[in-house]
C-alpha cells in the first residue's frame, strides 16, 4: 500500500529543532568549558531523572511528528491514486487498535459496560440497562465472571515485561558505564548503592517506575479503555498521549521563537547604545504594557479571521489546525521576547566595557564580527536558562489560552482542551473523573520534569542561583 508524506509546519519546525539540538550536543562535546558545565549539571540525580522523563516525552512527540496519508485501494479502471483524507502519524500506527476502539459515549476506566443506562429491546420488552461496550472487554464471554482474572493476568504480564525491560536497561548501563573495572556484578552493586560517578540509581528508578506503569497499560490498552472514554466515546488515554506532542510543540517552538528577536535586538541595544538602545527599549516597553493574554488574544483573533477567509489554502482540516498552532507559537514568540531582550541588553552593556572588547576595537574588528564572535557567545547562557525556564510556563499557558478560546484548535488533542471538557464532566452525576485525572497526571509529570530540568540547568550556568538551592546541612559531628 502506498502512502504520501505530509509535512506539516510544526513537523518541520520540530525536526529542525531536533537537528539543532543534535548540533548543540556536538558543539558541547567539542567545547571543554561547556562540556564541564553540562557534566556538572548532569551529576545531579533530579536532573538525570527529569532528563529521562523528558526524553520519553520527546520520543513520543518525535514519533507523532512524522505524518503521512495512506493510499486508498484502487478501484476498477482507476488510474490516479487517491489518498485518505485522514492524516496519520508513526505514533498513530502504534496506537492503531485503541484509535479504532470508539464507543458511543462515556465509560469508566477498564469498564466492560457503559456508564449510563440505555433502553434496550429484550424479548419484546424495553428494559433500561447498562449496555456492553462495543470494544472494551469485548473478548470476554461473561464480563462479570472473567473480567478480574483477565485484567489481573494482563497486568502481571505487563509488569513482567516492564521489569524485564528495566533490568535490561540497567544491565546495559552497568556494562557501559564501568568499562574495564570489576565484574558486572560488582558494578551493579556500585550503581545500586549510589557510589558511581553519575548518580545512575535515580534515573534508573524513574525509568523503572515508568516501565512498570507503561507495561500493564500497553498490555491492557488493546482490549480495554485503560483511562475510560469521553463523551463521544474516544479513548482518554489516546487523547492524553496525543496531547503530549501539542504541549511539546507549544513549549519548544514558542520559546525558540522569542530567541532571534530578543538576541538581535538585545545585543544591538547594548552594543550601540544611544538611539538604537532608546528605540529597542521603547519597543519592549510598549509590548510589556499590554497584558500578555490580551495581546495574544488579539493576535489570535486576527489569525482566526485570516484562516477563515483563506480556507482554500489547506488540503485537510489537520493542516489548517496545524498552521493555526504554528502561528500561535509565532505569536507567543513575538509577544514574549521582552524579558529575554532586557536580560541580554543588560549583559551586553556590562560586556561592552570589558578589556577584551576594547582590544577587539583597537584591532579594528568590524562591529558585526565583534558582536557575533565576542558578545553572542557570552550571553548564550542567559538564552539557555530563559528558554528552559520558559518551556514549562508555556505548557501551563497553553491550557489557559485554550480555555479562553484563543489556544489550540479544538480538533487537535491538547491538555487545555481536555481540561476544558473535564470541567463540565466534574459536575455530572455519576461523576466522570478520568479525563480530568488523565490530563492532570500527564501534565504534572511533563511540567514537573521540565521544571526540575530547568532548575538544574540554571544552577549549572548561573552560579548565583546555586546558593538558593535547598539542601539539608550535614549533621554536626
Amino acid at each position, binding site marked *: 500500500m502506498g502512502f504520501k508524506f505530509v509535512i506539516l509546519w510544526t513537523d518541520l519546525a520540530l525536526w529542525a529543532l531536533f537537528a539543532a539540538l543534535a548540533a548543540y550536543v556536538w558543539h558541547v562535546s567539542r567545547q571543554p568549558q561547556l562540556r564541564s558545565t553540562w557534566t556538572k549539571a548532569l551529576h545531579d540525580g533530579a536532573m538525570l531523572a527529569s532528563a529521562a522523563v523528558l526524553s520519553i516525552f520527546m520520543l513520543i512527540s518525535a514519533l507523532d511528528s512524522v505524518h503521512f496519508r495512506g493510499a486508498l485501494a484502487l478501484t476498477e479502471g482507476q488510474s490516479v491514486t487517491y489518498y485518505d483524507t485522514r492524516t496519520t502519524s508513526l505514533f498513530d500506527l502504534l496506537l492503531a487498535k485503541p484509535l479504532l476502539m470508539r464507543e458511543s459515549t462515556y465509560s469508566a476506566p477498564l469498564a466492560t459496560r457503559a456508564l449510563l443506562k440505555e433502553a434496550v429491546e429484550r424479548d419484546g420488552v424495553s428494559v433500561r440497562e447498562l449496555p456492553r461496550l462495543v470494544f472494551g472487554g469485548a473478548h470476554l464471554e461473561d464480563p462479570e465472571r472473567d473480567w478480574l482474572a483477565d485484567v489481573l493476568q494482563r497486568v502481571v504480564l505487563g509488569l513482567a515485561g516492564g521489569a524485564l525491560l528495566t533490568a535490561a536497561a540497567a544491565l546495559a548501563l552497568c556494562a557501559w558505564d564501568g568499562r574495564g573495572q570489576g565484574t558486572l556484578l560488582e558494578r551493579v552493586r556500585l550503581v545500586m548503592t549510589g557510589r558511581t560517578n553519575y548518580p545512575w540509581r535515580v534515573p534508573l528508578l524513574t525509568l523503572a517506575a515508568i516501565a512498570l506503569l507503561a507495561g500493564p497499560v500497553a498490555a491492557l490498552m488493546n482490549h480495554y479503555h485503560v483511562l475510560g472514554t469521553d463523551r463521544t466515546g474516544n479513548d482518554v488515554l489516546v487523547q492524553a498521549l496525543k496531547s503530549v506532542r501539542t504541549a511539546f510543540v507549544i513549549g519548544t517552538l514558542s520559546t525558540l521563537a522569542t530567541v532571534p528577536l530578543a538576541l538581535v535586538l538585545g545585543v544591538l541595544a547594548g552594543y550601540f547604545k544611544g538611539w538604537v538602545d532608546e528605540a529597542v527599549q*521603547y519597543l519592549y*516597553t*510598549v*509590548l*510589556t*504594557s*499590554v*497584558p500578555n*493574554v*490580551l*495581546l495574544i*488574544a*488579539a*493576535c489570535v*483573533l*486576527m489569525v*482566526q*479571521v*485570516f484562516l*477563515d*477567509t483563506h480556507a482554500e489554502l489547506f488540503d485537510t482540516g489537520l493542516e489548517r489546525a496545524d498552521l493555526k498552532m504554528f502561528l500561535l507559537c509565532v505569536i507567543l514568540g513575538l509577544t514574549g521576547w521582552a524579558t529575554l531582550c532586557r536580560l541580554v541588553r543588560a549583559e551586553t552593556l556590562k560586556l561592552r566595557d570589558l578589556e577584551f572588547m576594547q582590544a577587539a576595537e583597537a584591532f579594528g574588528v568590524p562591529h558585526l564580527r565583534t558582536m557575533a564572535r565576542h558578545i553572542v557567545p557570552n550571553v548564550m547562557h542567559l538564552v539557555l536558562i530563559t528558554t528552559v525556564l520558559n518551556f*514549562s510556563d508555556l505548557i*501551563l499557558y497553553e*491550557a*489557559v489560552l485554550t*480555555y*479562553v*478560546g*484563543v489556544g489550540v484548535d479544538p480538533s487537535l488533542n491538547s*491538555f487545555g482542551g481536555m*481540561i476544558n471538557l*473535564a*470541567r463540565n464532566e*466534574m*459536575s455530572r452525576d455519576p461523576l466522570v473523573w478520568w479525563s*480530568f485525572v488523565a490530563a*492532570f497526571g500527564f*501534565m*504534572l509529570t511533563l*511540567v*514537573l520534569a521540565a*521544571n*526540575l530540568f530547568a*532548575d538544574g540547568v540554571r544552577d549549572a550556568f548561573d552560579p548565583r*542561583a546555586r*546558593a*538558593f538551592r*535547598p*539542601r*539539608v*546541612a550535614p549533621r554536626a559531628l
Partner: protein
Amino acid sequence: MTVYLLRRLWYSLWILVGVNLLTFILFFTVNTPDDMARLNIGGKRVTQEQIDKWKAERGYDRPLYWNAAESGSEKLTRTVLWERSVSLMALHFGRSDSARSVDIGHEIRTRMWVSLQLALPLFILQLIASIGFSLLLVFFRHSRIDFWGVVLCVVMLSISSLFYIIVGQFLFSRVLRLVPISGYAGGLEAVRFLLLPVFLSLLARLGSEARLYRAMFLEEIGKDYVRTARAKGLSELRVLGRHVLRNALIPIITSAGSYLPYVFLGSLVFESFFGIPGLGAFVIEAIGGQDFAIVRTMVFLSALLYIASNLLIDMAYSWVDPRVRLA
C-alpha cells in the same frame, strides 16, 4: 520629584501612542473592516450593502490612515485611526461591535468594582501568605523543612491554575457544600461567592511566589548587616522580621507590582470560571463573541493601568528605601 514625574508622564504618553498604534495595526490592517463586518454579521451570503451599513453604523467607513478626499489637516483627522485614537485617549470608549452593542464605558464602570472586590483582598492576602511562607522556609533554612517546603513549591507551581479551580469547586462546593459553586451577588452576600476564588487563586500562585521570595530573602541574608544584627545579639526572628524583610522589600515590590494591573482588570480565568461579572469575564466574553471593539478598549485600558502601576512602584521604592531618589 515634580520634574521626574512630568518626564515620566511625557514618556508614558508616547508609550500609550505606541500601544494604540500597535492595536490599531493588529485590528484594522491585518484584517480590513470588511472582514470584521463579514464575521460579525455572520452567515454565508453577506451583501456589500450589509457590510457598508455595518461599517457606517460603527464609523469604520472612513479611510484607515489617510483621507485623500479631504483637504488640509482633515486629510489626517477624518480617518478611522485618528478618530479611534482620540476617543480612546479621552476615555470615550463608545459602543461595542456586536449586535447587542453595549456601552463599553458604562460596562467598565460597573464591572470595575466587582473585579476590585475580588482582586484587592487577593492581592493583599497573596503578599501576606507568600511572604509568611517564604520567611518560614528561610527561618528553617538548611533543614528538612526548607527542603521539603521547596519541593512542595515546585510541585505546586507545576500544576495548572485550572486544576486548582476544578478541584476546589468540586471539593468545597460539591462535596462539602460550604460555598456556592459560582455566581455573584451584591453587598455583603458577595463574600460568600468570593471566598473560594480568592483562596484558590492564592493557592495557585503561592508556589512560584514563595520560591521567588525565598531566593530574595536568602540573597539578603548573606550580607554584612545581617551578621552585625546577629552579633548585636538579636534573635533570629527579629533579624528576619525587621532587617531582612525590610531590605528585601524592593525586589518584592517589583514582583508584586507587576500584578497590579490585574488587580483592576481582574483575573481573567478565575472570574469567568466562577461566574463573577467583572472585567476579566467581560474580556473573555468579548473574545468568545469576537467583539473587537471591547478587546481593543481593554488592551488600551490595561496599558494605561500598567503604566500607572509602574509609576506607583517607583514611588513605593523611594518610600521603602530612602536612598532611592527619584530624579
